[in-house]
Each structure stands twice: as C-alpha cells, then as structure tokens.
C-alpha cells in the first residue's frame, strides 16, 4: 500500500465513459413506453377476467397482440436498465455482479416468455 502512488490508486475508479449510453437507452425506452403503457392497460385490462376462449380469440387479433408484445419487449429492456441502477446503488462487494447478471437475465427471460406467449396466441 505504501508503495502505491496517488495516480495508481485513482486509475480505474473514475467514469466508465459509458454512462451516457445507459441514460440515452432509458430515455428512448421511457418515451416509447408512454403510449405503449396506455394502449396495454386498456387492451389487457379490457380482457382480464374473461374466459379462456375469449382471451385466446382476443389475442389472435394483430393489434392487441402487437401492443402486448412491444410492451413486454420495451418494458423489460427499460426494467433491465432501471434495476441495474438500483443494484449499483445498493448492492456492494462481491454480491453485486452475480445479482446484476441474475436480474438482467430475469429481464431478458421475462421479455422472451412474454413475446413468445403473445406470438403463440396470435399465430
């Protein structure tokens, strides 16, 4: 420790030079989600509680299916970015990377399951 210079201790602890990309991705997905959320709430909300046959017939139509698929895709990409910030702020030490990878994996998995389910219902 005594042999480390100040310069050596500081190297690598500064900006990762990629924060603007993360911020921009959150901005883009946020803007796209504003109309998607409204459309999804009123399409999904209208059919929730209906019997199985009605639900399947409803999501065989292109519009509600596309709204649901896009909401899952963009929504979980947005969530992936948000939960990353949460983990980076509150999870410290060796747990951070496994938690980060786990939550990012969960985001992609949930998006894939949602899009696959909608595609299967629609086609």
């Amino acid at each position, binding site marked *: 420790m*005594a042999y480390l210079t*100040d310069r050596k*201790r500081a190297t690598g602890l500064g900006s990762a030079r990629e924060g603007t990309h993360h911020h921009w991705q959150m*901005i883009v997905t*946020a*803007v796209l*989600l*504003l109309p998607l*959320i409204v459309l999804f*709430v*009123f399409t*999904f*909300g*209208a059919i*929730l*509680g209906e019997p*199985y046959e009605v*639900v*399947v017939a409803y*999501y065989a139509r292109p519009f509600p299916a596309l709204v*649901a698929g896009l909401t*899952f895709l963009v*929504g*979980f990409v947005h*969530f992936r970015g*948000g*939960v990353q910030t*949460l983990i980076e702020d509150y999870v410290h030490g060796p747990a951070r990377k496994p938690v980060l990878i786990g939550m990012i994996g969960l985001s992609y998995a*949930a998006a894939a*399951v*949602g899009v*696959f*389910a*909608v595609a*299967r*219902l629609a086609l």
Partner: protein
Amino acid sequence: MADVNRGNRPLSPHMSIWKWQLNSITSILTRITGNALLIGALLVVWWFIAAATGPEAFAVADGVITSWFGKLVMLGSLWALWYHSLAGLRHLIWDSGRMLEMADADRLGWIVVGGSVLLTVLTVAIL
C-alpha cells in the same frame, strides 16, 4: 502521500438528518414503483404464457390474478404504473431544461402524486 487519511473521512449524514420533502419523496417513489412493478409484470407474463399453454394452465394463472390478492396486486401495479409513467414524464421535462425552479418542481410533484391517483381511479372506472 498526499492523503494519508484515505478511507477514514467523516461522511455527510445525508439520509438521517435532512427533512423529508416533496421532491425527495416523489423521487424515491419513482425508484420503488419502477422496481416493484416487476411483481405485477411477472404475474402478467405468467398469465400470458399460461393462456398460450392451454385451458388448464390458464385456469390456474387466471385464478391467481383474479383472486382478491391478485386484484390487490394488479390495482397496486396499476397505480405504480401511472405514477412511474408520470414521474418519468417529469424527468423528460426536466431533461429538456424546463420547470427546474422550486415552485415549478413542486407543482410537478403534486401533479405526479394527484395524477397517478386520478388516473388509477379513472382506469378502474372505465374498465
């Protein structure tokens, strides 16, 4: 060494001594709602994959999501969704350099809180 006291400096007691105010509460609620929406989102994804699987699987997922507890989670998620959307819109406004004065920021805060409740009530009334 320029700084021998490294790692042993006094920290600002930032969380424990500041008074709660509208901006700090609406800010932390944005984070809480955004991350808590995972629960409702996973329930909805489960409902969709169950519908794609078949009538038996759908009956289970639909039973959970339309139970009193499921409805409570969906209602909470609906409010969280509107709150997070309005708070996100507020961030987009701020990012454009507008409404950053305290009076405007406070006004936006009340709009986000009141608007989220209003939108939730309206959505439930419409659906």
